[in-house]
């Protein structure tokens, strides 16, 4: 198992750095993961970090860092995004109208969590008193060696 941990200031300008680190860490430590799956994971992590930064802005704790932890195991890659915002309940989010519903276009935000749920193999939101941990898991294909 390998662990790569990154702490970023709660600023959108650091999202690009998170994607670079996730790309480099998983690209080198989890060979065999397809570029498409790595892209999926990068988008999901970026979405989780965007929410984390927004949570820090809402809770006015901009000086506290957001932690991104990549855990690379033989059969899966787990990325945890830990914020120190006020926390939220993902189950209380409004459901999006069906794709064919004209009201669908009213939704300019709220797309991030549905994306995370589709792009990662497992997603968990763990609220706590002092923030939320989002856990994203992508399975690794069995290696043939």
């Amino acid at each position, binding site marked *: 198992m390998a662990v790569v941990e990154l702490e970023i200031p709660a600023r959108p300008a650091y999202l690009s750095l998170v994607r670079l680190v996730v790309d480099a860490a998983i690209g080198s430590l989890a060979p065999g993961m397809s570029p498409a799956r790595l892209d999926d994971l990068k988008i999901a992590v970026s*979405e989780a970090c965007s929410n984390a930064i927004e949570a820090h802005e809402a809770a006015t704790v901009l000086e506290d860092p957001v932690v991104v932890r990549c855990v690379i195991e033989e059969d899966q890659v787990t990325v945890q995004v830990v914020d120190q915002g006020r926390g939220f309940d993902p189950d209380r989010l409004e459901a999006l109208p069906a*794709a064919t519903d004209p009201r669908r*276009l009213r939704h*300019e*935000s709220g*797309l*991030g969590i*549905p994306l995370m749920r589709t792009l990662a193999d497992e997603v968990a939101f763990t609220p706590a008193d002092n923030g939320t941990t989002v856990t994203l898991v992508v399975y690794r294909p069995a290696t043939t060696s």
Partner: protein
Amino acid sequence: MQLRTEVSEVGGWTVVTVHGEVDVATAPELREVLVRLVGEGSAHLVLDLDQVDFLDSTGLGTVISALKRARTHGGDLRIVCTQPRIARLFQITGLDKALPLLPDVDAAVAGA
């Protein structure tokens, strides 16, 4: 990587070609360009996303916002996107049903 936009005119449509990454950090810049263009009377927009390296839900939100703004001003917005990894996000969120992804600027201008 920074966001960069190029604006050109093709067949009466204003084509905005987007380069780089569209996320929470850069989406406001793209939104500003699109709002300005519609405000200046260019409400028939083609947004070419084929040079985009990364796009997230904020980018999708910016596209929806621009589409609504263009239609409110009597225009429309059409998307050029052939990159599977970007197109996939439109498909997952169902936005491709409301906003078809077109193969190139000529098809977008022709309304194909």
